[in-house]
């Protein structure tokens, strides 16, 4: 049986449904990410697991412990859930030293002082903070403060670690470094992680599985690679990775890119369910389009609008009909110059119904 279970969890704030009938199972030791734009309900879900928000309906279980269930009038307050939590804004207490911050949850549990000292030092060592133990957290950088928050959450040896956009307040290179530190700590301690973020690369790098959410409704739960390679719908496709959408018209049994009088080549097979629509979208990742020669039967003709060198890759904007397509190729690959006519080959086309 799964370790963390959310059963039919719903949360309404007045008339607004923040989370709608969410069912979720997370294994012991799994790193599970919740991804979505702001306001999608991911943070609310995390806070319901933590116990900071009560449920409108449904149940939250961890192991064989029922934590929240409005139907059964059961609610375990956050302080009794034995979770660790790290917040975006660090939330380290400025009036205590680094050591005192980490020892605080242990003291609350009334442990013998020798054990408190040992576990505090272990947690500080695991997060490379031993040297800063007696300092005020205000003297640390953002990354340092977030390490204190991590150490504080680790010290109690939590069943579940809840991370609420823990890296968003850090600068980019530090973010990457901390990502792997969190992963290492999880391997070492074996707790489950629920990780909330709006940064997809963070979710990809850390997680065993990812949940993509939109307006309180689950869009897809899958392994990172599957989310990327097999997005469940238009929203997931556009939210994960860079994407470009092109309007396509279906006329007389042929597909035309909007504004273009040349039909799409037969090699780009339009799925049957799209043919009923007058208008739909051809979607692709800029890196999954390449330039081909003008005679290629699978090629789509267009014209370069602009070209930009972004270091290792070259970013093109190509006009086809009245649509624009982004193409990214390697720096060393041959490509057309600005304003030149060109021919594109879609390596992995996705087809979606037009947005309402």
């Amino acid at each position, binding site marked *: 049986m799964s370790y963390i279970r959310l059963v039919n969890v719903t949360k309404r704030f007045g008339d607004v449904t923040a989370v709608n009938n969410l069912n979720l199972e997370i294994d012991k030791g799994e790193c599970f990410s919740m991804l979505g734009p702001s306001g999608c309900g991911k943070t609310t879900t995390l*806070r319901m697991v*933590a*116990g*900071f928000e009560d449920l409108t309906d449904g149940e939250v279980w961890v192991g064989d412990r029922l934590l929240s269930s409005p139907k059964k009038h059961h609610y375990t*307050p*956050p*302080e*009794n*859930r*034995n*979770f*660790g*939590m790290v*917040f*975006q*804004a660090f*939330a*380290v*207490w*400025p*009036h205590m030293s680094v050591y005192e911050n980490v020892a*605080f*949850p242990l003291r*609350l*549990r009334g442990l013998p002082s020798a054990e408190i000292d040992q576990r505090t030092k272990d947690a500080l060592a695991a997060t490379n903070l031993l040297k800063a133990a007696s300092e005020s957290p*205000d003297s640390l950088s953002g990354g340092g403060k977030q390490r204190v*928050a991590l150490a*504080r*959450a680790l010290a*109690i040896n939590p069943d579940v670690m*809840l991370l609420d956009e823990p890296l968003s*307040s850090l600068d980019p290179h530090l973010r990457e470094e901390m990502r792997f530190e969190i992963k290492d700590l999880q391997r070492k301690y074996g707790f489950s992680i629920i990780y909330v973020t709006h940064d997809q690369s963070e979710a990809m790098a850390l997680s065993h599985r990812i949940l993509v959410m939109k307006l309180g409704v689950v869009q897809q739960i899958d392994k990172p690679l599957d989310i990327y390679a097999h997005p469940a719908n238009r929203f997931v496709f556009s939210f994960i990775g860079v994407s470009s959408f092109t309007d396509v018209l279906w006329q007389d049994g042929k597909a035309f890119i909007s504004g273009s009088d040349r039909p799409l080549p037969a090699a780009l097979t339009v799925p049957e369910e799209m043919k009923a629509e007058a208008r739909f979208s051809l979607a692709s990742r800029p890196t999954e389009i390449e330039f081909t020669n003008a005679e290629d039967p699978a090629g789509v003709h267009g014209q370069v609008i602009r070209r930009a060198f972004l270091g290792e890759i070259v970013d093109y904007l190509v006009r086809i009909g009245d649509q624009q397509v982004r193409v990214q190729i390697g720096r060393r690959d041959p490509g057309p110059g600005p304003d030149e006519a060109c021919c594109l080959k879609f390596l992995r086309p996705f087809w979606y119904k037009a947005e309402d």
Partner: protein
Amino acid sequence: MSSATIKKDSGFGVAQLILLLSIAILVIFVAWPVLLILFNAFFVDGSFNSLDFYRVLTDPETFQALTNSLIIASMTTVGSTIVGTFFAWLVTRTDLPYKNFMKSLFLVPFMLPSFIGALAWKMLLSPHAGYINKAFMSLFGTTEPLFNIYTYYGISAVEVMYLFPFVFIQVCGALERMDPTLEESARISGAGLLTITRKITIPLVLPSIMSGALLIMLYSMAHFGTVAVLGIEQGIYNIPTLIYEKIHESAGSFESIRTGTVLATVLVVTAAIIIWGQQKILSRGHYQIIGGKSFRPMELKLRGLRWPLLLFCLAYIGFTIVLPTVVIFLVGGLNTYGLPFTWENLSLANYKYILTEYDVTKDAIFNSVSLGLAAAVITMFAGVMISYVIVKMKVRGKGILEFLGMLPFSVPGSVIALGVILAWSGKFGINLYNTVWIILVAYIARYMAFSLRANSAALEQVHDSLMEASRSCGATMWQSLKDIVIPLVKPGMISAFFLIFLPALRELTVSIMLYAPTTRTIGVAIYTLNEDGETVMSTALAGVALILIVIGQTLINHFTKKVSE
């Protein structure tokens, strides 16, 4: 290649002129009177004499006043801090019903003048004539009053009622701005709400509590009205009331002026220490506790205590605000003081009399309104200019101005009044004594701090680049000031105007030392009529003052809301 010639400002320019003007205003209105006090305190017959300073200080009467100030201020501070912190916590961190409404009710005492409150409490709780004490004595057939307001406890209790909002407002602000995740992370660590309050919340808002407490300490040390109304009868003097008594009774004899200046010096030094301490606390203990994305902070569920606590709050408001106000209006309507409140004894005759016939009160209302308007307008413009130099201009000699700009914050009202007497009574060629102008001069000095604070805050919001952008578009410095800076600081100027006008309307501490028979302010008229036994007239005027203040405050709220929109 084109060669541009850069005109360099050399020597005496507009900037220097503004700087000098700013320095001159602060020196003439604030620094010089204070210097005169220090000079008179330490120099006897033109030579330095600290021994005589010590002699005056240890004179039993003076020393008693110092002790009294300290006792009353300490009790007031402790009381206000407890009351203010408790109510602030109640309206920000619990599920008390009608929290926002209660919060605005707790701010009401801010606008009520405490000496009018003291007057009301005198009528309620004076040992033998107070309405409550009389009722108590006749009810239980005793000659012992329930509570004697003419004591340290009585005076402090009345001051607490009107001063606790200083702590309340600071603590409310800190609790509301505090990042809720600081408390949530303690909760997830396993701490219950009581532990969180004790270990996290209170330590984090302690700097705000302390800074509010110090403000109250400063205010109470230098507070005239309550002690004058409730203490003098029993011989309880504090520093400001003794200064007043000395200047008043001896009509400016050398010995009493010396005592006054020595006491004033003690006040100035105390104020400086308190303000220094407050800055220290705020800068050192000012934790970065303001968070990013915010959820509602946790609320303590009061459960069964919800309604009883609301009732307690309402009872507190009823007892400390409604009851005294009602008493003021009722007594103001009595035909003769001492009669019971029955319909035959009550009428609007007194109100009509003081508004249309009685010269003393008519003059007082006219004086207070015109003095308030004049002081507010002058101080508002002077404040913009001085703040502009301090905040924005890069000009040599600004340091002097920054130092002088701190001064108005630490000079209490009675010190200013005494300094103004020393400076403007003809000793230096200009004699304003016994005219309305001397009160105006003192008001400008007294309220300069308010204007400087509001205007610097507004100016700090205006980033330098806005002005630079305007200059680079081809506007001159004056055009940029007129079209860019002034429109942006206008809200600050308007709030400065009101911040000065309303307190000036109900002012007592300064004008009581400077008034002449025809230059009474509303505060002076209420106080002197009461001293002369004209209790009902004095109370009726107090009622009128309360109405004026409430109308003024409503207008402010209306205007400042409009400006900020």
